[in-house]
């Protein structure tokens, strides 16, 4: 019994490490042409990984459903872009990512997390 619980605990730890750190999400959206819609709700951006080509105009349409103040801003720190998101009304954020690379976007407190992957043309 007690061995079982210990094994279970270690398995749980391994699972946490794998699930939150090692596993790479495959649920990514690719931006082509039209705006990519991102739903902002309950602590997550859905989808949270966006692929976009470098040097092309990109429109991210944020649809904020969460009315808590945590969700009110979206910030692309390394791109110097930020916006206040209205609740219930889609907000189009348009810009052209010039340099390929990975850019995190977060809420003000970095609880909502997403990643914009800009790929070389």
């Amino acid at each position, binding site marked *: 019994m007690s061995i079982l619980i210990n094994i279970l605990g270690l398995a749980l730890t391994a699972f946490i490490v794998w699930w939150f750190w090692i596993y790479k999400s495959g649920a990514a959206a690719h931006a082509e042409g039209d705006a990519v819609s991102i739903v902002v709700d309950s602590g997550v951006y859905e989808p949270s990984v966006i692929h976009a080509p470098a040097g092309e105009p990109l429109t991210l349409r944020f649809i904020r459903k969460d009315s808590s103040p945590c969700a009110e801003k979206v910030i692309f720190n390394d791109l110097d872009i930020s916006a206040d998101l209205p609740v219930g009304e889609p907000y189009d954020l348009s810009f052209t990512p010039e340099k390929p690379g990975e850019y995190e976007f977060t809420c003000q407190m970095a*609880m909502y997390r997403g990643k914009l992957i800009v790929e070389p043309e």
Partner: protein
Amino acid sequence: MAKATESTKPKSQKTQRLHVSDMSCAGCVETVEKTLKSVSGVNDARVNFAERTATVTGDVSPDTLVDAVGNAGYTASVMDGDIAESEKENMELGHYKALLKKTVVSGVIGLIIFLVSMLNLLPPLEALSGQVSWGVVSILTLFVLTYGGGRFFTGAWKSFKNHNANMDTLIAIGTGVAWVYSTFIVIFPYSVSEIARHMYFETAAIIIAFINLGSALEMRARGKTSQAIKRLIGLQPKTARVVRGGSEVDIPIEEVEFGDIVRVRPGEKIPVDGELTEGSSHVDESMLTGEPMPVEKKTGDEVAGGTINKSGSFLFRATRIGKDTALAQIIDMVRKAQNTKPAIGRLADRVSGIFVPTVLITAVVTMLIWFNFGPAPRITYMLVTTMAVLIIACPCALGLATPISVMVGVGKAAEYGVLIRRGDALQQAGQLTTIVLDKTGTITEGKPELTALDAEGITEEELLGISAGVEANSEHPLAEAVVEAARKRGIELKTVESFGAVSGHGVRAVYGGSEVLMGNRKFMLDNKIDIETAVSKSEELSESGQTVIFVALGGSLAGVLGISDPVKADSREAIKRLQADGIRVIMLTGDNRVTAGAVAKQVGVDDFIAEVLPEDKAQEVSKLQRKGEKVGMVGDGINDAPALAGADVGFAIGTGTDVAIESADITLMRGSLHGVADAVGISKATLRNIKENLIGAFGYNTLAIPVAAGILFPFIGILLNPVIAGAAMALSSVTVVTNANRLRWFKP
């Protein structure tokens, strides 16, 4: 975003947004778009189906547009910024009230359960009646979890699916474990030994109450942090008195058009930006520039929307309206800057990214340790510590630490007329070791005057006439002083030919067949002009801080001009303030060493670099940087752009209405150098505040988590009650926000 399409159109093209509520298909979009485009005066109309909005550019009143859409069978309403802001406030108030309600309901139920179990009011679990009544308590608690804490569970699940974990995850697991374990005991009371047969319903309910209370308090405190922006928005007047068809009518501010003549009476706010056409007055611009003294305004002067007319009544022509006004741009800029993060905040971001999974692992390890090594009843200890670990850790405080201080700091700076563009600039301004001041327009007024005139071989009148004739072709600020002096004395400007400028040295032209050279000593020597006779005079002028211009006519010296640019009244004091902050202040100027030295001595800078060509300013900055200095550069924008961009922090001195200086990190709305000292002071205070917040948040978690895990138990037998953990977690973010709010009282 709509700006790109407007660049070629005249400014009277205002952009308006309508909300069209009942479009249900793509066909509707076409109808509405066509309808709007057919309205006379409309240049372009675009409908966004997803937003149910229409963006219209053109010279037309919003009512006409609403009517036109109405005639086509749809309902339109005008959207404006102020409404959006108050809507946001209403929404926040609603959210706040909902949180309080959840606090009260969860708290009351939690308290009742607590009293009931404390006073043993229910039959014991060993009897069936006990199981039934505790079953009811379990259901009550489940209600609290779903009503008061439902969002934590949905949030936790959603993040989990996204391989993400946040505060919701911790709360959901903590309270969820408490409920599941307790309910399990109710159903199978004999599964654990009697002494461990303890239930945690009240713990779960009260934790939910505390966390809702914490969020509510945090929201309240947060509202105060954005006061600077609210104040700026509040400056925008609602109506304007416009001269239309010979009479003056009050119209809503949105209907003011480019070129309108607007009447402002004493005590009134100036509605939009413009140029005074009739009358004169004193205007209080302190809300924009931080400059307390009212500024005199005469015909031709610029006035800015949002500032207050103190004395006279006047008319002005609207030159910038809507989103183009200085105030609107300032609001936009402050808002953007409030959202950026200085480098110091990125560390916290990295930590909070791995924070929650780390806490989860800590919780599992805590559980295993108590299970294997803990005293009896092991299950109880194990549960209490695991729950406490989960509940007490709050990534919120860590995540809030930086942004909330930046928000207050940037807002505070705006109050003093200091516009900070990036969070990084806010951090760096506090770490500068050297500040380079461009002399002209920064230390001095930038409006030079002719203060000496010494002719040789020709009359003074002739000298000034020829000089002014030459300089009338130049755009150099010194040239303006010469022309102005000739005008003042009523001397006719002589006509010259083939004007040419030699950057940083002087100008040449032809007058009456002979060559005129005007410029500095080096320029004369380069052109082999004998200046021997004027050497002592020019040295005398230089030593008194005047810039000397030699004038040569037909190959020989015709005289010297002395021009001085008065030092701003408060430059010396502001420089002292910077030095008191431990910053070396260096003056940069194109003047010769002697003139520069005189001014440097007058204002008390630590050092000066003279005879610098405009294009070499950036080089001087990088020279200092190579020596390891953190350099701030202060200039008036236009010709200093490369130096401003190259410095660690570029400060542009604006003129109150001219806020769009792109190359600068920080724009000073007021001409005074005190703005630089204010910026440094506010930056230091903000940085200190951020550090306090970060140390507080890091410290809180590094101390609280081990205590929650029971590290004190083997020594002094203390365990943390999960309810206390819940209260502590709720308070941690409130503390951070409250500390940031202290910045509001800071005075640089």
